[in-house]
């Protein structure tokens, strides 16, 4: 009889595998790799899953079965927000039937709601392209904003897992200290970039350029969400001929064909920057991601 009850307990533990793993640490679902990396800094013991990679356009992710399965088990979902994931996240929330991560629950956190976004719009019309009312969601290249997000994530981790509050406080203190020490070093290293003019694809690096004083004078996209058209590229060539543009910048998940065409005609370098952690070999965490991006920008004369 004792064996049977043990067996039953084992079966129960197996079927309730989720609650068993929650004891070992939280289950965190990150929409983008930068938030998976942040979660790793702030909750090193957590089981962390990134829904996308730096090679995938987060606007156009499929609400695929594997993501539903991961979302089903999540204690905390951490996403950029500002409608970046509007095409797939609501479907995951619906299909995963996990009340912990529905909007308004403690387990659903949107980074864009924790900070002041750039380029908020009062008026939005689809003829303007695929634009977001709530501002630009690619905020992880703003070191100050990312620190604010880290602080809010830490508060949320403590609320979800109060038993480990001290551990989360310690992890945040460590991250905050290293991050705040790194910012002036990055700024010193990127000193020469201020005032540079670039042509870029989408507003992926809006916050990075805002931070470092780089000016994006034109966009390879004719309208947000639309791929570069030949007519639009011709107009960019006109713009490039003014001679003040130093590079064409694309993100690791963006197609380089339009950029390469323009680069050849205008005799400009194409710079592929990692959009996130994992976007190139150098970018292993948030620190090395920033290092790599600034190194690459500095490599252009």
């Amino acid at each position, binding site marked *: 009889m004792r064996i049977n009850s043990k067996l039953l307990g084992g079966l129960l533990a197996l079927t309730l595998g989720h609650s068993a793993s929650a004891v070992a640490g939280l289950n965190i679902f990150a929409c983008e790799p930068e938030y998976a990396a942040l979660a790793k800094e702030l909750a090193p013991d957590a089981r962390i899953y990134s829904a996308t*990679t730096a090679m995938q356009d987060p606007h*156009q992710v499929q*609400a695929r079965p*594997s993501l*539903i399965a991961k979302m089903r088990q999540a204690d905390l979902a951490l996403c950029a927000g500002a409608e970046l994931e509007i095409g797939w*996240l609501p*479907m995951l929330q619906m299909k995963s039937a996990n009340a912990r991560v*529905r909007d308004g629950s403690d387990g659903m956190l949107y980074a864009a709601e924790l900070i002041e976004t750039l380029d908020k719009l009062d008026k*939005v019309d*689809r003829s303007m392209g695929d634009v977001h009312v709530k501002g630009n969601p690619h905020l992880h290249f703003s070191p100050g904003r990312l620190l604010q997000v880290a602080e809010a994530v830490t508060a949320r981790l403590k609320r979800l897992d109060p038993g480990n509050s001290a551990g989360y406080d310690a992890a945040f203190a460590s991250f905050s200290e290293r991050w705040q020490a790194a910012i002036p070093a990055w700024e010193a290293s990127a000193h020469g970039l201020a005032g540079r003019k670039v042509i870029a694809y989408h507003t992926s690096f809006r916050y990075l350029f805002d931070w470092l004083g780089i000016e994006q004078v034109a966009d390879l996209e004719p309208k947000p969400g639309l791929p570069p058209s030949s007519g639009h590229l011709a107009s960019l060539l006109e713009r490039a001929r003014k001679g003040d543009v130093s590079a064409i910048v694309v993100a690791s998940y963006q197609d380089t064909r339009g950029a390469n065409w323009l680069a050849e005609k205008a005799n400009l370098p194409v710079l592929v920057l990692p959009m996130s952690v994992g976007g190139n070999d150098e970018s292993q965490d948030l620190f090395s991601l920033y290092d790599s991006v600034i190194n690459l920008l500095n490599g252009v004369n």
Partner: protein
Amino acid sequence: MNSFRLSVLASSLISAVAVAETPTLGNPAISAVLDGYYQSGDRALGGREEGFGLGESELAISANIDDLFYGKLTAVIEVHDGETELELEEAFIQTLAMPAGLSVRAGRFLSDVGYLNNQHLHTDAFAGRPAVYRAFLGGHYFDDGLRLSWVAPTDLYWTFGVEALKGDNMRAEDEHGEREFDTVGVYNAFTKLGGDIGDNSSWQLGLAYMKNQNGRLTPHEEGEEPHEEDEPAHDHSHSAAYTGENTYVADFVYKWAPNGNYKYQHLTLSGEFFRVNDFKAPELNEEEHEEEEGHEHSHGKDYHQGWYLSGVYQFSPNWSAGLRYGELDTQLAHDDHFDAQKLKETEVSLNWHHSHFSTVRLQYTRQQGTNFDGISDDNLFTLQYVMTLGAHGAHQF
């Protein structure tokens, strides 16, 4: 007074459409789909008709009702046989906070049978549903009822669900309107499994069993004159043309994109197989057995069957092409016996997407019928647009 209220409603709708993205309290997600086409001929089994026409133009409103419930209403305006029909395709609530991966959907909703059925028509890569859908599900099967589903807490996606539905559109033909049908006519059980293969590929497999209490044909009465040349399901476009007591469905979908990045190119392969059996009235079954013993010849089989395979390749953000082939084998009741008939469809579509919200499609369809509704060999061309405006809801895999 009425017109005043109407105009207030209209203006609030318009302002909501202009800004709706993430639904908020005073601002539910509102979207409309516009679908118009020209087609060079009639499509078999309640598909699009010849000439200029409108497809399903839909208007949908959805929002969280509170922290426990989500609600959605989809009205579809359809022109059929020269009549404009307004139909509710969805009017359901869904639970948001049940424990243990459980959820309930109640009201009118798209059944979770098969792969395509729970997807909205405007997301399709072709101008119409495959022949198996038009034959066995009335194009796409939505109904009034209840669904309970469960998602397993495993890394391999596994969901299981049961549905109980009214089944009006799945009833066998009842020429005289004398039959007493079960009011809960359809029970459906389904399961789906899915996952990723590396960064590039994702897959899903589905199985469903549908029990249709009203799927068997009505027994013929003694001395009754059978209708001549009965064309199935002429009364309503959403009724299944061929029904049976048991329906088995197997489906798969495989999607591929380089590095899992769907923006620039991706490939979708999908296929479904349907078998419908036990469609004969009980007494007809007996007659058939006796007949088989006596005569050598047998009329048709004792099941309907159909399948399709579809491949859609999006080769740039602006262009995609699709190829679909399907076969349908059905048995048509004819006096006291059944005649086997067959329909084959080969379809090629070329789609131009200016943005994520607009598609213009050119499609070629070759219908080849054997004893099928007078179709022997038919070529169809369809030129169609499908455009969505307002809040664009998330799409399923």
